[in-house]
């Protein structure tokens, strides 16, 4: 595996802070960590230094090419006789890469600096077309801002500007206006440093230089949307947002992405009642500032025409729009008639509030424990795999903690698809923190980026042999006395593991040696979650973690936006909210579907779960939907599951309701309502609450999402004390009491 950490990104450029130094910026004296970039120090002092190419999260090695941040620097010089005098550096220095050193004096407002800035802007505007009125970046463009604040009013350039065809289709979601590019290299550095696919680079040289991919192939990345936000001009543009709105037309609302369990913080930019674009919002603990393409471009469903706007009833095979009064009347009637023979499935895409109201309705009003949020994978008791042994359910580490690992084992996961933000952390740990990554997976996809691109070791095993592989590793650890294995891998040998898994013995040995070098995190993915012998594989993962002293570093992140929260809220057959065990557990998803198929279930309520699309045993799901059971579905659009139901209730998307999501690392984060698509669309909790009220109230009636959050914090120990206010913008990660 070639070392592609060649650029100057390593510790030598970003040394650990050992001491503070005194510097002076524009007469302001301040103390900063030694080696900090002057541009960052200037931010501390409140001195504005303009820049284009600098970005604190990108490597420093290729930076300093826009030359916008030039400053005058006076460095102390020691004469032979010991006297120290300040000497001006002969050339102006780029403050974005200049490390702070004792006694440095920086001047950012001298005549020369002002002139340099004017000069650089004049150079940049030589070829930059002045089509700001039709540019999507206009109004939020760093080049516009800097040109207005620091540029000259006119240009002396009278020659022909460079011309290219507009809107070059760079990627599926990104169009590229080559005329506008100012060659800051932010996008190229992003693909190299952050996403890891290194697909963008510079072609040609000098004034002909342009950003592009090798041989002009398509830019296929899972993170291509970020380059749009990184671009300091309107060169890289979103295809879906192109010409849709100007920044001053938009309103912005803080939210959390609904596409996976990582819980990226996002901003919903909307106009009237339609979502226009998604931008990343900074949360250092979760997504830093990145988004994946699924999240950035995958939310067009929110404002799509296909959204359901009234309840739909199937009568005689035909769908008929009805009003809410009628829908609730029918539903309540069916629930009354069912007399407790009711079951609920779903909740992984709903907020905590929805889920809490869901289980309250079933447990306290309908008196049924047959409720489960899981539609695939392991359906047994959630305490079995990890909790009983290590005291946690899904992720032992916070996402940000992965940076500090020496070794990271990614097991059975197409990490970049399943957990894109965890993938970016793993990549960061590798690229900037020197971690070693081992990728164990049963199939390797062709396209980049993926963990295999930078993994030190890639173990491709036969599908389903995860446990054998882990036991093989344990046997090596035991044989080479790298760790005290406590007889975990008894009766297992390296040869046997190699034969069973199809991985070479040397690779297993190497992997074992790498794992014994220090802090090891294990991230298991879909292949483990859906494994037929899930418990056995998790047992082996636990053995490995315990043997290497990393019992708290096992991570089995869920996949849906609120799979963690739904479990926390007790949408499980055997646990009340907060994992309080129930005396008489109900049925899990498979058992519920079986009951429906048998005809012993009267009413099945599906809250947003895509049963027909996702449930592994499709025949069973189809049989359940074909039975006489009355099936109610809360959905946004007419999905396959909704089509097969009897009554479909239009539910609000995440952009239309208040609430909280709990991401895979147990961080509870708020979402805010941005707009209403239609007043006939209701959030799930309101639907449950209205039914509960009509059924006789009990504990299931709520007035608002905030009201439910209050109930949650009062009744769920892990969520105790959480209020809308205390969650703030960055959320709160809840911890197990003993941790």
């Amino acid at each position: 595996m070639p070392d592609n950490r060649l650029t100057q990104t390593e510790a030598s450029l970003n040394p650990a802070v050992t001491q503070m130094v005194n510097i002076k910026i524009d007469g302001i004296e301040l103390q900063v960590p030694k080696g900090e970039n002057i541009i960052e120090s200037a931010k501390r002092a409140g001195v504005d230094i303009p820049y284009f190419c600098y970005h604190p999260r990108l490597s420093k090695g290729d930076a300093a090419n826009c030359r916008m941040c030039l400053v005058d620097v006076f460095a102390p010089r020691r004469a032979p006789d010991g006297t120290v005098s300040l000497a001006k550096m002969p050339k102006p220095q780029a403050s974005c890469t200049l490390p702070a050193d004792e006694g440095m004096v920086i001047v950012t407002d001298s005549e020369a600096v002002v002139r340099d800035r004017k000069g650089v802007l004049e150079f940049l505007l030589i070829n930059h077309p002045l089509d700001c009125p039709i540019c999507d970046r206009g109004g939020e463009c760093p080049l516009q801002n800097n040109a207005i604040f620091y540029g000259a009013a006119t240009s002396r350039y009278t020659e022909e500007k460079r011309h290219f065809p507009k809107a070059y289709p760079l990627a599926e979601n990104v169009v590229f206006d080559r005329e506008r590019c100012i060659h800051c290299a932010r996008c190229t550095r992003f693909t190299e440093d952050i996403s890891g696919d290194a697909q963008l680079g510079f072609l040609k040289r000098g004034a002909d230089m342009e950003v592009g991919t090798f041989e002009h192939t398509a830019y296929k990345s899972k993170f291509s949307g970020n380059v749009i936000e990184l671009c300091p001009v309107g060169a890289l543009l979103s295809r879906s947002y192109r010409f849709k709105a100007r920044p001053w037309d938009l309103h912005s609302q803080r939210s959390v992405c609904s596409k996976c369990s990582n819980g990226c913080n996002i901003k919903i930019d909307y106009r009237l009642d339609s979502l226009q674009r998604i931008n990343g919002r900074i949360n250092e603990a979760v997504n830093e500032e990145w988004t994946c393409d699924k999240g950035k471009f995958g939310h067009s469903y929110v404002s799509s025409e296909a959204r359901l706007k009234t309840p739909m009833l199937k009568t005689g095979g035909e769908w008929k729009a009805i009003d809410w009064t009628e829908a609730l009347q029918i539903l309540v009637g069916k629930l009354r008639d069912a007399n407790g023979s009711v079951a609920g499935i779903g909740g992984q895409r709903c907020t905590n509030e929805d889920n809490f109201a869901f289980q309250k309705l079933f447990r306290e009003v309908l008196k049924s424990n047959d409720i489960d949020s899981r539609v695939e994978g392991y359906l047994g008791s959630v305490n079995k795999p990890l909790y009983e042994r290590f005291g946690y359910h899904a992720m032992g580490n916070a996402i940000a903690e992965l940076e500090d690992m020496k070794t990271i084992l990614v097991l059975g996961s197409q990490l970049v698809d399943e957990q894109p933000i965890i993938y970016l952390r793993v990549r960061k740990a590798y690229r900037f923190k020197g971690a070693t990554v081992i990728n164990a997976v049963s199939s390797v996809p062709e396209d980049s980026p993926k963990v295999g691109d930078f993994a030190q070791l890639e173990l491709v095993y036969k599908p389903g042999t995860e446990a054998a592989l882990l036991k093989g590793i344990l046997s090596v650890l035991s044989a080479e006395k790298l760790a005290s294995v406590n007889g975990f891998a008894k009766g297992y040998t390296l040869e046997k593991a190699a034969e069973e898994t199809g991985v070479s013995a040397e690779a297993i040995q190497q992997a074992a040696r790498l794992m014994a070098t220090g802090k090891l995190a294990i991230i298991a993915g879909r292949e483990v979650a859906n494994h037929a012998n899930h418990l056995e594989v998790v047992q082996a993962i636990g053995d490995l973690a315990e043997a290497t002293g990393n019992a708290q570093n096992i991570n089995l992140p869920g996949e849906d936006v609120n799979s963690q929260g739904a479990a926390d809220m007790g949408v499980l057959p055997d646990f009340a909210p907060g994992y309080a065990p129930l005396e008489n557990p109900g049925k899990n998803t498979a058992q519920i579907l079986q009951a429906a198929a048998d005809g012993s279930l009267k009413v099945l309520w599906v809250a947003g779960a895509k049963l027909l699309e996702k449930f592994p045993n499709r025949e069973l799901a189809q049989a359940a939907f074909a039975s006489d059971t009355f099936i109610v579905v809360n959905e946004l659009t007419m999905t396959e599951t909704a089509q097969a139901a009897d009554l479909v209730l239009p539910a609000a998307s995440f952009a239309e309701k208040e609430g909280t999501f709990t991401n895979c690392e147990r961080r509870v984060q708020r979402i805010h309502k941005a707009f209403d698509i239609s007043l006939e669309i209701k959030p799930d909790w309101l639907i449950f609450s209205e039914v509960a009220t009509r059924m006789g109230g009990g504990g299931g009636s709520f007035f608002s999402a905030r009201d439910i959050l209050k109930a949650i914090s009062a009744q769920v120990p892990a969520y105790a004390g959480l209020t809308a206010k205390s969650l703030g913008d960055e959320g709160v990660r809840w911890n197990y009491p003993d941790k």
Partner: protein
Amino acid sequence: MGFLRTLQNTADGAKALTTGARITMRHYMGQLLKTEPLQTVQYPEERREQFPRTRWRHVLTRYENGLEKCIGCSLCAGACPARCIYVEAAENTDEDRYSPGERYAVKYEINMLRCIFCGFCQDACPTGAIVLRKDFELADFTRKDFLYTKEMLLEGASVIPLTAVGTHKEAVK
């Protein structure tokens, strides 16, 4: 003394009345004999010439070749202090071209009830597309009719909603 004062007041009143009546009579006779110019304009049959910088109804203008000047940049909406302009843009194609360049306004609406005729939109317009002209007879019967659409605003189209005029292509003719 009371009588004297009453007399005095009456005399003053009579004097003021005659002064006033004299002015009225002078102008009346002047008008009658046509020795002085007419001040009253016989609106709507006659119309007074307006000042050069009068700002009334908005018009979206065109280039000589018939293409729309508006590029849908929404700067007018940004400049509008009454927030009464709504613009939606789309991309020109070679087959279906409305304006030069890449972008044109697919929707352009002004809520005339909100408009304060400040002319900031005209000021902000980079292509000189929107101008405030002198057509001031903007009264209408329903509120809905004050929502001027692009078809109504576009030069070459009538004040009547464009259902009567047709598409932009016909309007060019």
